[in-house]
């Protein structure tokens, strides 16, 4: 005899897990709405971008020559949870002392309401880091 209630619980849990995993997409460079050019070399801008990610609460999950990826840990709240976003930062060398930065934030299905696009804030933090204000 099949336990219908147990089967239903497993099914609901499976659907939730599928939604969580399926909606945590990878950032894409061509979808990056936040972009800016900085008058510094790629190495200097990359370090400033790493600092900017740390300042905005991202954990660095990927660090490549021209790409950084970070994730904000998900924290449950009373009404709205916070975190869960993944951000991709692309660094393109325009000239030896000029670097373009493109940022794309992806959100997850769970916690979507408490998540935001961090692109502009990260660009602002990079600017502050490069000007030595932070």
């Amino acid at each position, binding site marked *: 005899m099949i336990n219908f209630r147990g089967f239903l619980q497993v099914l609901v849990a499976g659907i939730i897990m599928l939604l969580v995993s399926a909606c945590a997409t990878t950032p894409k460079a061509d979808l990056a709405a936040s972009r800016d050019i900085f008058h510094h070399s790629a190495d200097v801008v990359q370090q400033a971008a790493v600092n900017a990610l740390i300042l905005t609460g991202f954990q660095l999950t990927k660090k490549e020559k021209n790409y950084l990826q970070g994730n904000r840990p998900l924290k449950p709240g009373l009404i709205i949870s*916070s975190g869960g976003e993944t951000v991709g930062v692309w660094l393109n060398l325009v000239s030896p002392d000029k670097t373009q930065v493109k940022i794309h934030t992806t959100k997850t299905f769970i916690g979507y309401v408490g998540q935001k696009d961090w692109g502009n804030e990260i660009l602002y933090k990079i600017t502050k880091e490069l000007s030595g204000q932070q």
Partner: protein
Amino acid sequence: MKTCLKKCMLLMVVSFVTGCAMQSQFYHLGEKYPPTPESVVIELFWDDMPSRKFIKISRLDVHIENTHFVSASFADALPELKRQARLSGAHAITNIRESSSSMGETRIYHVTATGVRYLK
């Protein structure tokens, strides 16, 4: 009904426990040094600089995010800031900069500082 209430309370307790996140890290600004021993007291300099000769050796970051409208302060970050300074081989913490913001019911607090090492 009683079971449901118990489950709800358990969920709330779990939610309160997991509603806080602290991230911290340091990186060396140049040469790497071994961690400072526990016996050495890490000094704190808010506005002034150490009178002894020193070199800047590390950047220190502590980031705290609390949900449930609970704010964090420098006191909450200090133990972790000192731990990061010690791990980086610093003898003192200088150039302390705080920032705080909020997002919904989340309160964000961040402190950045510079670890310095005394020269003999």
